[in-house]
């Protein structure tokens, strides 16, 4: 798989990262190198192998449906860079 600079730009948008031209120039060959390396996995026949997403074979863990104390709003908002005491504030996206 060959990664172009345009591919990397597209991934940067998906990843919500703003990358400078210099970063794109550096990352494109680096990602290419890593992707080539991980493609060694294609040497293996994995037909019929069950994918293993997790080390534990746990079933769903249910919690009792009871109300417990949670973080008060002021604490939950305390680390927000921009808030009005009730809501997180973001730049307007509607009506553009």
């Amino acid at each position, binding site marked *: 798989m060959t*990664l172009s600079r345009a*591919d*990397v730009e597209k*991934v*940067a*948008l*998906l*990843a*919500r*990262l*703003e*990358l400078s031209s210099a*970063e794109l120039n550096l*990352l494109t060959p*680096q*990602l290419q*190198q*890593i*992707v080539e*390396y*991980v*493609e*060694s*996995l*294609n040497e*293996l026949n*994995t037909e019929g*192998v*069950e*994918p*293993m*997403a*997790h*080390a*534990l074979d*746990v079933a769903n*863990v249910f*919690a009792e449906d009871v109300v417990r104390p949670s*973080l008060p709003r002021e*604490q*939950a908002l*305390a*680390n*927000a*860079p*921009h808030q009005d005491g009730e809501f*997180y504030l*973001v*730049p*307007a*996206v509607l009506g*553009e």
Partner: protein
Amino acid sequence: MRLVEQTATQLLAQLNAGEVTSLELTRACLDQIHRVDSRVKAFLRVRSDAAIATAEEIDQRRKNGQPVGRLGGLPVAVKDLLCTAGEPTTAASRMLEHFHPPYDATVIARLRSADAVIVGKTNMDEFAMGGSTENSGFFPTRNPWDLQRTPGGSSGGAAASVAARMTPLSVGSDTGGSIRQPAGLCGITGLKPTYGRVSRYGVIAFASSLDQIGPLGQTAEDVALLLEVIAGHDPLDSTSVARPVPRYTQSLREPLKNLRLGVVQEHYGEGLNHEVAAAVREAINVYKSLGARIVEIELPHARYGIATYYVIAPCEASSNLARYDGVHYGHRADEKRLITELAVERARLEQASDQAGLDRLDNALVKLYRRSRAEGFGAEVKRRIMLGTYALSAGYYDAYYVRALKVRRLIRNDYDAAFKSCDLIVGPVTPDTAFNLGEKSADPLSLYLVDLYTVTANLAGIGGIALPCGMSKAGLPIGFQLQGPAFTEETLLRAAYMFQQATNGHQHPPAIVTTNA
């Protein structure tokens, strides 16, 4: 021997016997930090006043004959990946430089109720991504054995704190070797527990199916003491396992009879430093002399471990780190500036009737996300987010992510088969001794390959312990690793203890501890 040079177990006995107070010990550790940490740089933050207050409170309780927790006033350093209520927790990232978590991680709560004295938060690779602590968003940590070299990572600060005798114990995390590798490179003992043994609640997530919190100390006995406190089921972490926690410190002294140690020929192939190979072989001979039987085993898919890991871990990381959006918490870019920039750019594109350019232009919110993340994350974190996003993107998901999950199963199956004929696997923990700072930073893949012997335990979810077994000619520690089936921490610790009773390599501190600055 100076107070700070003693093991946690020795110190705890003195605390409980009233021969030393927690305040004296805490002050001694703070003095040692003051003496050496301007050179080692293991700590991001030292909480001197809070530590002294905690120590005094514990001493008072002990004096009054009131109950004192199992750690009895022992100073502990904590990797800055674990949330401490009301106190900065950064994961060594600029993204979280001003983050004050509203709650304690379960491990922190357990440390507090066991009467540990948390003296500070240790440096690490940003979001635990790296193997040298050079990816810290703040500064690199140095190896106490040679200040030009890396302590390893990502728990480099945690390992250096114990190695330079700044604290008798540290808490670290291990996603692909981040406890065992720095323990090996710093000449101390570090254990990565079985996945699910220790709660991850309140631990800043890197790769959730691989992350595990674990103890570092001078000896297996010290590590057992700390594991006993932090292990156990936590209703707040649905992946923590509801199994009783053995009293590791009680069973530790029982030697293992008829121990079968698995040896993997492939471990000794290309890329393993010959001094490391010789020291590990010597460690195996020690076990032989203690009556262990050596069994040849095969882990045929282990050589795909790094490739598998560097698909799965970045995929999980890209998902986990999506939460850093400049809105809920963490760094946010200058909003006014970027809105002005967007307006200027829009006007320019309209002027030029560049419709394609206008279509590509981010809206203000997307721009805010992108710039906040670009400013907050360091290069390695960006690289892994990019890699993971790519591997999970439409059209590549099956080719990379699902394939890696299948190979992960094969790696796990190899271990299951191997543990039918042996109790533990013995081998190297790192392919080489500590490398120079900057040596591998230009080539990310070369640094990934350092995790060769450790990542497979994370992929399989099993436990592993690293402990010292010698010194190189250049005076750098060499470690080795024992790996065991899930939930056999008792066996790992007993085997490590046996080795440390028969040898004395773990008792030598680096020169920075013994010489006056």
